[in-house]
């Protein structure tokens, strides 16, 4: 079948057909420079400030769902078949303010106004999903939005009041949902998309088999799922990444399967899409999940990408390794599975052969007596990269620790298990002595680095103290809180 050489999507309800799209053109540049839609702002070009927040609607299992995303690190080509909604589309045709806008005005939620369109879009996404949020839910929804003027107080108050000004039932994206769904269905790709010049080529495979074929043809291609990391290679480092293979749209990589034995998550599943299943199968990860980046990034970023990029400070590898997760790699003509910890070989080096792509992650469900915990230490509580991240899984039978899997991020060149600490626990009776020994042993397990996130001393001390925290949190004899409350 002939390749499709351009992309089609909807922008604020309008059809957009682009014949030749460079892989590295961002949605933000397209909006501001080509469409003159200047309501969407560039604050950081790295997905950390939210001034560029827009909504992207896409079909998920046939249903149209809108999510807040960062336009600055979202590649235009990846929007094939989607509906992009910007702040310019919120007011009614008569200029009447949208309920979110009305609330922001009434509660004095803007001062300089530069971050405001981004906040409006995040709050719009929240209101559609959850019209009567709690304060903590509001804070979670705007983790990815920075405001330097207001101190956020009036913005949070506005967010809590939006529903007084109108309900989602009357919103354009609700009333027009069927028509928009039909229009999007009509523009879904029917063939592989290959677009852009040779040195900035974008490829959107039709399905997983086509992906394997594309990678066999282009073994050095850059695979992009959520672009929350690769986006920065372009916007910050101006790195050439052609050819780029986009995978976020592939349904086969989006499966989430929960059985009695394990949770299997497709590599293209975003943090947001996996949230419900994670909460069900691994309740201890629920609060941790909310601390991975900001909402916009969780809506784009994938667990597959977090693993595949091999960062020593990714949030998911330590907690997945401690749970005994396996990664499945696929390529044309074969697939293989390996324990996640074996995937990380060294800094910047993973066990990924030419043509391989991460297809899924399988996380075994806890066995009887298994106690799990996940910890993230960062300078700022939310939307920060961890200085230390830890997954701790300990199984206790009849008062004796029969198995321990402890993995840390931020402590070595790769996400890594704490062999000494694990050994100090296994075979010991559950108790302070065992964990004191583990807390000492973990200091020998790692030689962390000092950088702008934390010093080596702090990392080592915190890693050790987190094992003490684990004991205190799970020991029946502990009195008083051992961790700060979320709300």
């Amino acid at each position, binding site marked *: 079948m002939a390749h499709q050489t351009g992309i089609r999507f909807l922008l604020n309800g309008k059809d957009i057909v682009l014949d030749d799209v460079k892989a590295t053109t961002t949605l933000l540049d397209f909006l501001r420079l080509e469409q003159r839609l200047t309501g969407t702002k560039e604050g950081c070009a790295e997905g950390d400030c939210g001034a560029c927040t827009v909504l992207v609607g896409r079909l998920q299992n046939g249903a149209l769902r809108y999510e807040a995303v960062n336009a600055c690190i979202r590649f235009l080509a990846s929007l094939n078949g989607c509906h992009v909604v910007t702040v310019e589309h919120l007011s009614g045709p008569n200029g009447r303010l949208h309920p979110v806008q009305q609330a922001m005005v009434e509660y004095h939620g*803007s001062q*300089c106004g530069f971050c405001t369109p981004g906040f409006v879009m995040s709050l719009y996404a929240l209101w559609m999903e959850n019209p009567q949020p709690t304060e903590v839910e509001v804070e979670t929804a*705007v983790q990815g939005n920075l405001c330097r003027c207001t101190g956020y107080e009036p913005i949070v108050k506005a967010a809590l009041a939006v529903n007084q000004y109108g309900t989602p039932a009357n919103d354009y994206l609700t009333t027009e949902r069927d028509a928009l769904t039909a229009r999007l269905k009509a523009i879904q790709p029917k063939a592989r998309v290959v677009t852009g010049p040779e040195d900035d080529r974008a490829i959107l495979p039709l399905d997983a088999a086509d992906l394997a074929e594309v990678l066999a043809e282009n073994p050095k291609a850059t695979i992009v799922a959520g672009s929350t990391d690769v986006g920065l290679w372009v916007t910050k480092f101006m790195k050439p990444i052609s050819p780029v293979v986009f995978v976020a749209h592939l349904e086969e990589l989006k499966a989430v399967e929960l059985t009695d034995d394990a949770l299997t998550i497709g590599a293209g599943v975003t943090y947001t899409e996996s949230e419900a299943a994670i909460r069900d199968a691994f309740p201890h990860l629920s609060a941790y999940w909310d601390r991975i980046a900001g909402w916009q990034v969780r809506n784009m970023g994938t667990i597959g990408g977090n693993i595949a990029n091999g960062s020593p400070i990714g949030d998911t590898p330590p907690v997945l390794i401690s749970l005994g997760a396996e990664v499945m790699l696929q390529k044309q003509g074969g697939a293989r599975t390996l324990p996640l910890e074996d995937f990380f070989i060294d800094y910047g080096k993973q066990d990924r052969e030419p043509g391989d792509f991460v297809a899924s992650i399988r996380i075994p469900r806890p066995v009887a007596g298994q106690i799990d915990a996940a910890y993230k230490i960062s300078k700022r509580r*939310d939307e920060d990269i961890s200085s230390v991240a830890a997954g701790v899984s300990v199984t206790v039978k009849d008062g004796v620790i029969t198995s321990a899997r402890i993995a840390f991020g931020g402590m070595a060149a790769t996400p890594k298990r704490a062999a000494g600490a694990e050994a100090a626990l296994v075979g010991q009776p559950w108790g302070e002595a065992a964990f004191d020994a583990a807390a000492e042993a973990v200091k020998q397990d790692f030689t962390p680095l000092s950088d702008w996130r934390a010093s080596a001393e702090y990392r080592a001390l915190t890693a050790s103290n987190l094992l003490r925290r684990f004991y205190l949190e799970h020991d029946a004899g502990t009195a008083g809180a051992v961790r700060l409350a979320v709300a």
Partner: protein
Amino acid sequence: MKDHQTISGAVHHDRQHDSAIKHVTGRAEYTDDIAEPYGTLHAYLGVSTVAHANIKGIDLSAVRAAPGVVDVLTADDIPGVNDISPTGKHDEPVFPTEKVEFHGQPMFAVIAETRDAARRAAELAQVDYEVLPHALDPVQAQEAGYPMITDPLKLERGDVEAGRKDAPHRIQAQMTVGGQDHMYLEGHIAFAIPGEDEDVTVHCSTQHPSEAQHMVAHVLGVANNAVTVNVRRMGGGFGGKESQMNLFCAVAAIAAKKHNRPVKIRPDRDQDMTATGKRHDFVIDYDVAFDDAGRIQAVEGGFAARCGYSSDLSGPVTDRALFHADNAYFYPNVLLKSRPMKTNTVSNTAFRGFGGPQGVVAAERMIEEIAYALGKDPLDVRKANFYGEEGRDLTPYHQKVEDNILDRLITELEENAEYRKRREEIIAFNKDSKIIKKGIALTPVKFGISFTATWYNQAGSLIHVYNDGSIHLNHGGTEMGQGLNTKVAQVVADAFQVDFERIKITKTTTEKVPNTSATAASSGSDLNGMAALDAAEQIIARLTKFAAEKHGVAEADVEFLPNRVRVGSEEIPFDTLVKEAYMARVHLSAAGFYKTPEIHWDRAAGKGQPFFYYAYGASCSEVSVDTLTGEYRVERTDILHDVGRSLNPVLDKGQVEGAFIQGMGWLTTEELWWDGEGRLRTHAPSTYKIPLASDRPRVFNTQLAEWSVNKKRTIKRSKAVGEPPFMLGISVFEALSMAVASTADYKVCPRLDAPATPERVLMAIETLKGQG
């Protein structure tokens, strides 16, 4: 017909920001949103990759050959003077010719058809450096024998030696206070459009259009009247756009004139943060002597600052640190010295509080030291040292504190926040809680209002009343989100007694009001409100005279009522009177002017009255700390802040809340981190962490002291609000310190430097181990 009794947007009433609807709809236009004329070029800066070196040669051939590149500007392309020092010290070149003095220093600018092309090409320069040793902080700089970048200041009163001799207690210690990036959401940007003759118009995001105008004229070698600088609004400023925009304006203007094409320059966030200045970091040595009651007898303080490679505003900034090293406390004997150190870092600049917060932090630390040493509640030590009656009312710079309202303010906050009860509860809680420890602190702020550069305390305005009764308002201040335009328009609406909607607020431009001061030092509404009132009153006087003459009544019998004018017994709509006045050839335009009275300052003597008045405030914060990791939460903050008779309470409250969070960020999670090579590694929001919504106190009560009235005749008896509440964030820092101190039974004042990141908190706890 509108309400006949009142006008909309009256002074002392809540009024939404005049651009609120434009903000929420994305229709508010910022400099980067202005439609680019055909032929617009884009500039991008090429920067140094070492902290300190002689430039032996620069090979720009690869830059010039890169796709889309039109030109590369270096020092050779500057037609006028290669200098943009805002204080005339001639120590800040646009582009250096012999030496680079910090990592990331701009060396040249690429001019290209697109921003992307310019940005890519800027990476391609080959520079031959002769690397020199560098000093990054004030301690390294002093050890390396670096000079002070500008004259230090000394404030002295009484005799510290004698004061110390009589005092039973003495503490000498050191504290490091980190800097802060402004992290305005809109970065620097300038857009120059060439005109005929020597003219050039620059649209940009500066707090100081007049200075930008003068700097552009200076580098172009033309008269000031050839240059127009326009600012509609900024996406935040906080001091970071007071002098720092000069570079971008200069580059855009030089390129625009050279190529006779519009030129825009917008650095990316990383370059914005590495190439432009920040809040000064300080290393503060304090030596405080006190009696058994905790009353201070003598204070000696040394304030060494990281100023960067050039003076910029470091002189006045370090001066203001000394002006506020007393905060709210009377020092019977005092000697304060600044050491504005040259360092191989970006030249530090203005930031909300302008050095004042660093001085206040030091004062509060000394109070805490005394409290821990004597086993007292720090609030009692604070109260024992507040400025008081005759004999206890003189500042280290010999100005009398005559408007102190802290007694009442602190008492009210102490009661509303239930400080004493909660402190008891917290101490009890800490006894039983092994891992989580709490702390509480109630800290005051007293902040001097006026530019210490006395000539800056002037402002102008221009008001036109058109013959349909609509009003065009212009003043020299700039809008950066603080609501200045809204407040000034309220003043004008109030003067004419017309609805707010009748007034068109226009961009700040050097064409309409000349020789303006920076919108800084919290002075925006004080100065420009008065200047606008002056213009309005001139027109009102002419209208009054006209109406009185026409209707044959005394001028005293002409009264401006809401949207109408009473002339004798007759009421005439405002529009009608204006139309009649126009037909009778009455001049309906006026330029207004204001200068702050009473102030004077003799820097050499360290004496004078640099401040017109003081603004006051206080905050009480409670925190919880995880002693295993140093992580913390702010559980509750109560604020009571003084804005005099507020021009617009809701906007003032927004300033107070925003300033508190920004001050808290400065002292908690916002950390500037340079590596050994002198590279700033926290240079974007991914690495530099300002507070988020979830960092707000879990309970956050902010109130204005509604009973306060400025004793001085300021605009409608209001007080400045921009900077003073920034220092309310100090209560969070001292509450963290108390939680740390609890691990050693409050016997030792923790060694806690700012910012108190989770790491610093945990390490302070570690240091206390075994000391309880």
